[in-house]
């Protein structure tokens, strides 16, 4: 619990993003690797459970009186969320005609597209939160 006392919001967000990316990638792409179905399921369950426990305990710790989730952090979160949302909308709007195009003939499956969109959203949020926090 001492490690949690030193947890900052920045560290919490980055850790969550990393764990989310790990979990989502195992869920989406684990089946394609030669790891065995039960091993993949166990790995995904372990990662998911660990992520959930960290997210809940970390959030409770950060919301504890005396911690500093303040209005500036909220402003950073709102701006980064809005930016990543509009980037995602842009990516989807460009990707939809590209995937339907016969000339491009992209052979992406729905799993590939979902994974790419989730990773784009997570990466955009992380980068924009960092940039906004430097400027604000």
């Amino acid at each position: 619990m001492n490690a949690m006392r030193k947890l900052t919001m920045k560290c919490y967000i980055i850790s969550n993003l990393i764990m989310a990316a790990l979990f989502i990638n195992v869920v989406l792409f684990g089946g394609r690797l030669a790891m065995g179905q039960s091993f993949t399921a166990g790995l995904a369950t372990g990662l998911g459970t660990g992520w959930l426990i960290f997210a809940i305990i970390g959030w409770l710790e950060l919301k504890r009186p005396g911690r500093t989730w303040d209005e500036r952090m909220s402003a950073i979160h709102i701006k980064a969320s809005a930016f990543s949302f509009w980037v995602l909308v842009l990516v989807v709007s460009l990707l939809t005609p590209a995937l339907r195009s016969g000339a491009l003939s992209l052979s992406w499956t729905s799993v590939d597209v979902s994974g790419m969109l989730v990773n784009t959203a997570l990466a955009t949020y992380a980068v924009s939160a960092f940039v906004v926090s430097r400027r604000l």
Partner: protein
Amino acid sequence: MLNHVKERRALLGLTQGQLAERAGVSRQTIISIEGGRYDPSLTLALKLASLLGERVEGLFIPKED
């Protein structure tokens, strides 16, 4: 928005950390306000004015275009 938070804080001999703790915000927020990069909410501006013993309109001055 311009402000005199840094000057008032220094006058009262408070560190950024002490002011942040009393205002219930992070030290980074105080740094950003003093640097003019972040304009606080009305609630926080009133709290800072109260902590620094200054009227809010004296502590925060809107930039004239």
